[in-house]
């Protein structure tokens, strides 16, 4: 399946991915100014820039083939779509027990405690049906969206 791959040698640590992720999942879809100025309770970013200067990179759900979170979920809310491979959380049913956080080997699940506690994670912007917002707005192609990592594809 297509995944987002980070290339740490080109991550500039700007966190634009986080900013656009928040906007893409806010009620003011993709409108940055409204998201940050009017949404009193904006969503948490589902992508996380990790940084220890000079190294930085963005990390989000890897949509594991054998996704441990879906197996550990105590209510069956975390599911992997058999067709697209995208792992999504049915937030309605999620009770925020954080068992997925216990098992996610990437630490890619965030606690969203704005309202009813839910596990929040990358959905590859599947609702938009296009390139994920983080990839689209990465200024330096440090995020690539593809079937396999760029390095492998180019044989580097």
């Amino acid at each position: 399946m297509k995944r987002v791959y980070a290339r740490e040698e080109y991550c500039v640590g700007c966190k634009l991915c986080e900013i656009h992720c928040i906007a893409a999942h806010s009620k003011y879809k993709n409108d940055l100014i409204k998201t940050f100025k009017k949404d009193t309770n904006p969503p948490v970013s589902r992508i996380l820039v990790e940084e220890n200067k000079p190294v930085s990179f963005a990390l989000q759900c890897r949509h594991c083939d054998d996704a441990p979170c879906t197996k550990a979920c105590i209510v069956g809310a975390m599911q992997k779509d058999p067709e697209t491979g995208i792992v999504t959380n049915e937030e309605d049913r999620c009770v925020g027990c954080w068992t997925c956080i216990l098992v996610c080997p990437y630490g890619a699940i965030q606690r969203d405690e704005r309202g009813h506690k839910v596990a929040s994670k990358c959905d590859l912007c599947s609702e938009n049906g296009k390139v994920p917002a983080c990839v689209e707005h990465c200024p330096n192609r440090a995020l690539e969206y593809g079937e396999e990592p760029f390095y492998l594809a180019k044989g580097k």
Partner: protein
Amino acid sequence: MNYVIIGNSAAAIGAVEGIRQVDKTNPIVLISDEPYHTYSRPLISYYLAGKVAEDKMLYRKHDFYEKNKVTTMLGTKVVAVDTGNKEVVLENDEKVPYDKLLIATGSVPFIPPMAGLDKNNVFTFIKMDDIKAIKEVVMVGNKAVIIGAGLIGLKAAEGLTNLGVDVTVVELANRVLPAILDEDAAGIVQAHLEKQGIKFELNTSVEAITGSEKVEGVSLKNGKSYAADIVVVAVGVRPNTEIVKDSQIAVSRGIVINDYCQTSIDDVYAAGDVTEGYDIVYAQQRVLPILPNAYNQGETAGLNMAGKISIFNGGFAMNSIGFFGLPMITAGIIKSEDENYEVLVKSVPEQGYYKKIILKDNVVVGYIYLNKVDRAGIVTSLIKDKINVADFKEVLLKDGFGYIDLPQELRKSRLLRGGIA
């Protein structure tokens, strides 16, 4: 080919999904003594507290059985397994033949002997019906005594407190959650629970449940006694091996299984709380009554039953749980057992913050995270993959420990392998 599954919970559902990944057609018969659509067992305390409605308890959607071509026999109790004739025997003496059988009967509460267990309003706390029974009688202002300060006991305590019940918890050990927390962490959790009005009696146990027909109180071995309208017995669970006791299937503490989740008898598999599987942290067979383990074993059993050779190379204890907004995640060995263990700790009790990591030979074997539980799974995966952490030990306790703290090679190999967790 005819698959029979006994059980209707995490392990059973895992098996259905495992079988159907490989075999889309052959019939699956699923038998369960509980009359309900598969539901999430851990949610029963939420249900009790009214935080989750009954229809939101479903572990899989309404159309799950239909979509997966599963014939259900709900509300039907199995009493025995006849491995010679390859059939399971039902309570009404009917027989259900199988080609491949999965036993996923889970656990039953462990009830220590004590006087007065027969009185009304003494409950256990592991099934939907337990909750329904409690709901029938509980009233605001009631007093409850909970026997056992383990996960289930404290979940019951939380649920009842939320209903306005005055709760006292009795625990034989010197601390709450003795199986998953050390003394320091338990102290923080206990203080937090006490703030919510829950009282504790540690280092003691119940001598007798008193009352005439109905519970009126409990008397403790330490001499104290408490008035009570309700008693919940939650001292632990044990594998529900009842139906195999007269069969050839090998049972130690639970049904013994190998990496393929096979029992000692051909074509008979077992998964979940009922089993005794391999614990990779302790490197021995152990009963691990936790849901991720049940699902994984169930799925592995299902794959193997349908002919796709598959291995579950072992689980280990791991729990994520929270009480009144204090989350905690723990896994593996949580107390050093001898001088071969190295212990890293960071503790800020005022903030309810506690982090402890246990290493053996530079490999993480267990941890406790209180409050700041984010990204704990990274550490879980270090345990699972037995990563040598000698090079980055000092950052393990760091706030926000993450992939950035892993050596570049390890980080890249993990991130680039994409989907293969």
